[in-house]
């Protein structure tokens, strides 16, 4: 296993109340600065879209914190994208070639009221 420099690991965690996303029901076009079209379509196809919007928002905020711990700031939320694998595992990518050297692991959990997410990033040479 290659040695990993501690400074190349970023970590972030976030918790969000889902109330805003519940109240904004059927007005999700307000979310263009937060979510990609793919994410909006995914969430809107779920039985309770607001829970999934909230979970993804928490994950993006956690990602901002992880990036910040790597010294990277001012990233628009809507270039951070979460897609589920066929097995339903959420995976995060940053849609900007500048950040292709980041390996990312994440996890989301939620109730109907709150969502929590954790993101771990590893900066690797490619």
């Amino acid at each position, binding site marked *: 296993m290659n040695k990993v420099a501690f400074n190349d690991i970023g970590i972030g965690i976030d918790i969000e109340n889902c109330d*805003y996303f519940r109240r904004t029901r059927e007005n999700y076009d307000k979310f263009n*600065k937060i979510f990609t079209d793919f994410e909006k379509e995914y969430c809107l196809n779920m039985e309770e879209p607001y829970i999934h919007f909230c979970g993804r928002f928490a994950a993006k905020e956690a990602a901002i914190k992880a990036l910040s711990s790597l010294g990277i700031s*001012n990233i628009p*939320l809507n270039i951070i994208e979460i897609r589920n694998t066929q097995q339903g595992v959420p995976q995060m990518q940053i849609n900007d070639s500048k950040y292709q050297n980041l390996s990312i692991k994440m996890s989301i959990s939620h109730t109907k009221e709150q969502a929590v997410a954790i993101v771990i990033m590893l900066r690797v040479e490619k």
Partner: protein
Amino acid sequence: MNNIDESLQLIFSNILGVNLNRITDEIKYNSFENWDSLRHLQIVAAIEEEYNIELSFEDITSLRTFKAAKEITKKYLKGQSL
């Protein structure tokens, strides 16, 4: 205080859930009561809707005080009138 200042004050007051008189130039993002990242995006969406403008990413990240919100909004409205 002019109309733009007052309408921005109302936007902030409604979204942050505090009395109008608490919305002063000095209040800061991530410091003032309730002004967290989600409410920040709600404020941006409300300003854009109210004035039919679209803030750049740089301006969204610069909008970190109420005073900055006023200056940034007025910059866009000045641009519209040219």
